[in-house]
């Protein structure tokens, strides 16, 4: 790394890399949520975080302010992000439905009890 | 062919047990006690023979204060490879020979409870003794190796047949470990052999190597000439080769002679300095292989895990031999072979050697703290105590920065040697004492003992004494070796010195804790309490001499140092001189400073 990324963050514009870092943090938090929460809804929230982290990257790569060359995704980034948001909404609805169904059936939302698919 | 000839006397010491074993094997039937008594008599005879070396003025004697190899003899064995039947004795091997003979007697006396296959046991025991004595006396590398292997097999069977419930496992583990070491050693021996060249030694060195004998008043050159003309196969070879005046065309004359190899290793332009692999010289790799081989025997962390298992499973007398003698072979090998033959590599790797020593000290002490099996605890204490030996041998403080002063290193090596003897006494004693209670109550769980003082007062008194010798209490033998080693370390490395000093705390911890759990306390509540009878006269006669020796060596260390020190000191001085020649001031300090001051940096030359 040729420079220390936070050295002059207050006086210079940030770049895509900074967005990517925020995205990575959100993503990692989301993944860890999925991996550690036993509550099905917690897992859903983790998914939301993951999607957001991804979205942030799309936006960052689509932005005209963040790259020092001209190769931005342009509106493509924003469009994809938009799709992601919409699909996330759909996914949330379905997942929630599944969770509710599971809850109704098992009287629990502990995902550790949802292991009937084991080999 | 009289007893006053070294060839006869030393061969008798080494091979008397083997001959006896042969006789026992041929002899049809004896009852068990007679077998044991015969074996005991043989071991006593060997002890008497070896003690006979003390007798001054006899045809063969060991003179205190002489540094050189004494009572050497040299016979052709396999002339085509220059292999000789070559033995001798000096201050380094002499105490170990005495210790071996002495412990063999005690161990045989401790073998009385053995009732299974007594004949085989006695035969193997005698073979083992031959191997052990031979290793300490052999001065031909090939002979050394053969005897080294001779000693392994009986040990394997003694553990594997007469051992405890997991004896096969322990025996195989012991065998695998030592086999690994032996293979490395064999490779190293061959490497050294094929790079050696006897013709590069001058006349005086030939004399020092024990190849050429001088008579009083004869100059070394004359002696060499006389030897060359003597017509022995080796001399003929030598004459043939040296007849070629063009040095470039001369073919080398390989040798297994350890003393000659030592001189070659330390000479200018040593033949072992040839580059071999990965930029390292022959002696560098030979040192590594030899060191691994010996350090397995010592044993040092991380190659030590055979020891606890072997000890736990081995019968008491074999444990005594194992701890008292076999472990010493590792230290003996390092001091006799690794350092003098491969000084360059030893100099480079001195810090590694010391580190291994310190690691073993700490590791063994911690592990001993956690054991609940009495014998296992003692076994780990051996790992810890033998760490002092490795450390003491390694503290190469005779470097440019210290003006090549050999004194602190001498102190370390002498301390290491002393520690070997001291540990031979104290650990053999400890294993025997563990065996005494094990014979009575048939378990070794520390937590189920207690209150033995009330039931076996004399035994407990002896045990506390011997355990304190292991703890390093002043006035007992363990102290002298430890303190000499530890005091020598600071000059070499402060970090290692501090760590090694810290081990005294751990040692006190595990030994006192064990004493408390076994001997102190209100009453014995474990199994078979009714069998706890006071010790028998036989047991007393085994334990008491060990304690007496521990006290004598502890109170008056010169009783041992007088015999040992001249040889050790001379070897260290030679290595210090070697350092001064090969590492003149100003070349080394840099490397030592660069890498945090330590890890022996590889030299650019």
């Amino acid at each position, binding site marked *: 790394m040729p420079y220390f990324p936070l050295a002059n963050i207050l006086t*210079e514009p940030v770049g895509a890399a900074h967005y990517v870092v*925020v995205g990575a943090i959100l993503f990692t938090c989301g993944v860890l949520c999925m991996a550690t929460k036993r509550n099905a*809804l917690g897992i859903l929230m983790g998914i939301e975080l993951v999607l*957001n982290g991804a979205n942030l990257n799309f936006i960052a790569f689509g932005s005209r302010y963040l790259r020092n060359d001209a190769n931005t995704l342009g509106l493509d980034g924003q469009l994809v992000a938009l799709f992601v948001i919409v699909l996330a909404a759909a996914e*949330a*609805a379905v997942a929630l439905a599944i969770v509710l169904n599971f809850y*109704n*059936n098992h009287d629990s939302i502990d995902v550790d009890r949802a292991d009937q698919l084991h080999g | 062919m009289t007893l006053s000839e070294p060839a006869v006397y030393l061969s008798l010491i080494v091979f008397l047990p083997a001959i006896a074993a042969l006789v026992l094997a041929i002899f049809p039937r004896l009852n068990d006690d007679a077998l044991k008594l015969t074996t005991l008599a043989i071991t006593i005879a060997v002890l008497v023979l070896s003690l006979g070396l003390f007798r001054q003025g006899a045809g063969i004697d060991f003179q205190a204060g002489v540094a050189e190899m004494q009572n050497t003899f040299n016979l052709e064995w396999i002339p085509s490879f220059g292999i000789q039947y070559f033995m001798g004795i000096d201050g380094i091997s002499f105490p170990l020979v005495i210790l071996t003979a002495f412990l063999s007697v005690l161990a045989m006396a401790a073998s009385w409870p053995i009732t299974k296959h007594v004949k085989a046991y006695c035969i193997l025991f005698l073979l083992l003794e031959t191997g052990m004595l031979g290793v300490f006396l052999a001065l031909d590398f090939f002979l050394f190796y053969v005897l080294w292997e001779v000693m392994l097999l009986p040990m394997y069977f003694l553990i594997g047949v007469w051992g405890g419930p997991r004896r096969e496992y322990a025996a195989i583990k012991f065998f695998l470990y030592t086999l690994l070491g032996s293979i490395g050693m064999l490779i190293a021996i061959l490497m050294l052999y094929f790079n050696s060249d006897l013709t590069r030694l001058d006349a005086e060195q030939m004399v020092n190597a024990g190849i050429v004998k001088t008579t009083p008043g004869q100059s070394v050159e004359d002696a060499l000439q006389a030897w060359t003309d003597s017509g022995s196969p080796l001399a003929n070879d030598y004459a043939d080769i040296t007849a070629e005046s063009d040095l470039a065309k001369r073919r080398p004359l390989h040798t297994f002679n350890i003393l000659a190899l030592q001189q070659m290793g330390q000479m200018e332009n040593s033949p072992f300095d040839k580059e071999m692999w990965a930029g390292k010289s022959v002696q560098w790799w030979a040192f590594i292989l030899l060191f691994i081989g010996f350090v397995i025997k010592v044993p040092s962390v991380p190659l030590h895990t055979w020891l606890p298992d072997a000890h736990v499973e081995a019968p008491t007398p074999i444990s005594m031999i194992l701890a008292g003698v076999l472990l010493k072979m590792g230290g003996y090998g390092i001091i006799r072979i690794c350092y003098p033959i491969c000084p360059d590599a030893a100099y480079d790797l001195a810090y590694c050697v010391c580190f291994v020593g310190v690691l073993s000290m700490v590791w063994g002490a911690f592990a001993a703290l956690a054991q609940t099996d009495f014998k296992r605890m003692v076994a780990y204490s051996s790992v810890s105590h033998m760490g002092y030996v490795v450390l003491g041998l390694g503290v190469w403080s005779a470097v440019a920065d210290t003006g090549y002063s050999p004194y602190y290193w001498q102190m370390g090596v002498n301390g290491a040697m002393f520690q070997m003897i001291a540990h031979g006494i104290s650990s053999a004693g400890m294993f025997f004492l563990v065996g005494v209670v094990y014979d009575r109550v048939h378990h070794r769980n520390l937590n189920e003992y207690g209150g033995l003082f009330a039931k076996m007062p004399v035994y407990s008194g002896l045990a506390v004494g011997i355990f304190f010798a292991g703890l390093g209490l002043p006035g007992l033998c363990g102290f002298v070796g430890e303190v000499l080693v530890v005091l020598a370390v600071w000059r070499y490395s402060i970090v290692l010195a501090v760590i090694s000093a810290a081990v005294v705390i751990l040692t006190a911890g595990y030994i006192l804790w064990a004493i408390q759990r076994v001997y102190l306390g209100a009453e014995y509540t474990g199994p078979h309490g009714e069998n706890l009878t006071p010790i028998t006269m036989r047991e007393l006669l085994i334990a008491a001499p060990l304690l007496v020796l521990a006290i004598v060596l502890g109170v008056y260390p010169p009783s041992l140092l007088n015999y040992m020190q001249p040889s050790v000191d001379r070897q260290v001085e030679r290595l210090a001189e070697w350092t001064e020649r090969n590492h003149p001031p100003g070349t080394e300090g840099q490397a030592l400073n660069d890498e945090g001051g330590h890890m022996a940096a590889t030299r650019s030359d």
Partner: protein
Amino acid sequence: MEGIYWPSVFFLLFGGIACAFAVAVLFSKNIVRMAFYLVISLAATAGLFFLAGADFVGAMQLMIYVGGTLVLLVFGVMLTSQERFVEMKSDAGDWVIGIFAGGALLVVLIWAAFSIPAWQGMDAAEANAVAVKKTVTPIAMGLLGFRVDAPDRSGYFFPFEIVSVHLLVVLVGAAYLARAKRKTTSANLATGD
């Protein structure tokens, strides 16, 4: 205060909030609090979108996500929030493994992010020179298949249609799945799968 570049300050603010509350979501044990933290984190992300010049997506983020999806989630929470589910503890071992794996992932990602020079931003002057453009119309056109911003790039009409159908199906499916099955007894369930 002279040389301060305010967008960066806001980036730090929003980014910090987003990350902090994402971490809070991760470490909170209480599902209700998690939902709350998630709302804040996502809202802050919307702020980041605005900063990156994606005003429409930012607005959508606020509306759909914060306003819609999360409300859905909160409903889920409320529907299932019995005492015993509010705080469910995970095994400590899971946490340790998770932290290690996640840490490794994070390190990899961050290392990747900063190892590409083009991603390291432009000068302040350069950034100021970039003209502000509204994005709503171009996006709307893009979704209808016409790229006004970059004529050589393809439109998104077809994907848009697919997503629409998908949404429809999903909603129907969700409604079907989530309907109450009060009639089934637990005895059936035991053998039901």
